[in-house]
């Protein structure tokens, strides 16, 4: 299972007007693997996730999701993925359950009631199933977005700062669920500033700086590649080393 590529990004470049946000970025994520996407503010992490999820068009490059080209077959590619933004904005006038019903309809999910009940239970949203999204706290909105994302058993899950706004129990549930999704065979990309989380949960790491890839691989591979650092260097030390090197360059 580990060698089936679920996400393949080649030469991804994105310009906003004349500003280059991402430059010639290539990486892949295999089924059942968790990739940590890290980088300072403005490194291009969210832009990369939004392009891979089909929200933004790329300027150049090629993206394949489960072997489906995102540009030539967007519907087929998108049916395999789920995206959770850093600050979810659900529909204010819809209830929690209505969000799940609509998501199930869009992705053609059968037995929505039982699946929804399981997810609501897992993320402690059952008491809020009939509450309007506008009545939810930020953490609850995050949980709702994650429930909607998991509803159709996606093959690729893109999570942008997934722990923002969650309480300690929610954080533990979220981490467990990310691992569970990977065990199920999904490829997961987690973008986060919480380097400890990335170190704990992700098997591979991709460090972005000013829109460019500065390092990627498993932590051991990265440590081996940086001779200046000790063998037991933490991701935080690696991060500062890589981004400060980039700064000097």
């Amino acid at each position, binding site marked *: 299972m580990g060698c089936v590529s679920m996400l393949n990004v080649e030469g991804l470049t994105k310009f906003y007007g004349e500003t280059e946000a991402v430059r010639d970025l290539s990486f892949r994520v295999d089924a059942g693997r968790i990739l940590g996407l890290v980088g300072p503010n403005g490194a291009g992490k969210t832009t990369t996730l939004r392009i891979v999820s089909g*929200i933004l068009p790329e300027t150049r490059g090629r993206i394949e999701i489960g072997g489906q080209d995102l540009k030539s077959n*967007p519907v*087929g590619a998108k049916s395999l993925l789920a*995206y959770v933004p850093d600050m979810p*904005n659900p529909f204010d*006038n819809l209830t929690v359950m209505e969000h799940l019903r609509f998501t199930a309809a869009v*992705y*053609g999910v059968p037995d929505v009631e039982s699946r929804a009940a399981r997810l609501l239970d897992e993320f402690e949203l059952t008491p809020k199933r009939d509450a309007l999204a506008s009545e939810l706290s930020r953490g609850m909105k995050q949980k709702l977005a994650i429930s909607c994302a998991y509803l159709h058993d996606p093959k690729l899950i893109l999570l942008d700062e997934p722990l923002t706004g969650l309480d300690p129990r929610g954080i533990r549930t979220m981490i467990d669920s990310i691992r569970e999704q990977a065990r199920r065979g999904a490829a997961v990309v987690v973008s986060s500033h919480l380097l400890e989380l990335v170190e704990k949960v992700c098997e591979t790491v991709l460090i972005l700086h000013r829109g460019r890839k500065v390092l990627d691989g498993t932590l051991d591979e990265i440590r081996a590649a940086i001779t200046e650092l000790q063998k037991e260097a933490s991701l935080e030390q690696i991060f500062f080393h890589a981004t400060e090197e980039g700064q000097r360059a």
Partner: protein
Amino acid sequence: MPSPPHSASRGLLLLYGLLFKGRVRRMFRGLGRPKNFLLFLVGVSAFAGYVALVCFGGAAFRVEASAIRLYGPPAMALFFLLSALGSLNYPGIPFLPAEIELLFPAPVSRRALLLYKVLSAATALVVAAGFMALTFTWLSVNLANAFAASVIFMLLLGLGSQIVSLALAGTHERLRARVGRAALLVAVLALTGGAIITVNQAPNLPADVLRAALESVPGRVALFPFGIVTEILLAGTAPGLLAWTGAGTLLVVLALWVLIRLDVDYREASIAASQRVQEMMDRMRRKGSVFAAERSRGKGVKLRMFPRWGGAGPLFWRQATSLLHNARAIALVVLGALVIIVLAYHSATEGEWAPLEATLTLTFFSTFVLGMMLQYDFRGDLGAVEILRTLPIRPAAVAAGQILAPTAFISLIQWVALTVLVVLRPDLWPWLLAAGLAAPLLNAVLIGMENLAFLVYPVRMTPGTAFDFQHMGRSLLMGAVKYIAVSIIGGAAFAAGAAAYVLTGRSILAGGVAASTVLTAAVVSVTYLVSRAFLAFDVSSDLPA
């Protein structure tokens, strides 16, 4: 696993239905509470009364069909053009943030998503057309004609704007700016030329020019869709109405076909448009006012910090600085001053009651209209109430500091207008001087009442407040209470002034002092009440969601 793409359209339709249901649910929310139910009843009754008035009492004023045929199509075309010019500055179809986050990554084709958006927008446009029909029934044969014409016009307008938006979505900002400037220049030149011709030539020339333009080939082509809308308005028989509405529907279908066939990748432009709309909504929600939608553009005039005055000074300075940072507010102030001067002078040039007319005109247009618009006080500070509560300033000083900025700016406009009037009509100077002394006090009373009403029942502008009967009822009730209170205070001041004037042998000074004393007492009382309302304001429950 699941995810057959063909189910996506069903999902979009389900979403459309759920959102519609959600909006209706919002309209009826909280009706279990007596206060909300009462406000809802007031709103519904006022709306029903208005509809009844339009349906059964609106025949008093009708416009000649020939005039509607002559002026209607170019007027509609101008409106359409202005709407298209707006798209030049801000291209892109704005999706809701939730739609971007949930639908853009979903297995939905771009066209299906566009059709969903057109359907959503069309529903809102049809509702808006209903209100438009009620407003413009007097231009039509009856309400049915007005409604059919409004629906077709609004759909053409909406689709036309979306076509322009999509067509421009991929173009460069500088190119759009150039096209926009060129179009604006042409429009200004055309209007200026038209105005010069109108002023210098025979009085019936504008009609002749319009008639010739309408009958020319380019005129017929450009105004063809709006000609159809005009015929829907004027169709005298049911078959005629059906036929013209059918023709209009064909035009709508054609516009829809063009929109779909354009097949532009609208995602980036839509996200940018959505972000702009969202920022506007956020500003309105945070500040609690529809007038806060526009972003402050420049730093404007710099003010030196005012003396502390127990804490009221810095608050006054903050609101005044905010006002000066807002280019639109400044433009409004200048425009307001011009309108007031023209109107007041026009009133004051003839007749025995000239001074009174001038003063009333001045009071109404400056105090009431500008008082509603310049919300640089508690009304535009909803998001900052929590901060204000933490400041080491007495509530009375907070209240005074908050209401001083609009009071001062309106007074400034009035003094400019009064000065111009003194120059134009030197004989009226004692009256104008008395008005100049009383003006800040009356302004403070009105602004204080506006703030008191707001703090007692705060409201936050959201998209859901449009067509919201509770909101409508609240506005009507609070408006009535506010203006009755101001009328009583104004009446008392006028009575005191008149009594002193008569009793002192027609001394304008004595009258002015008496009226000002009553108004000063009112200012102190209203400021005290505002400070009590500010103290009683519970940020945990009074901040509307």
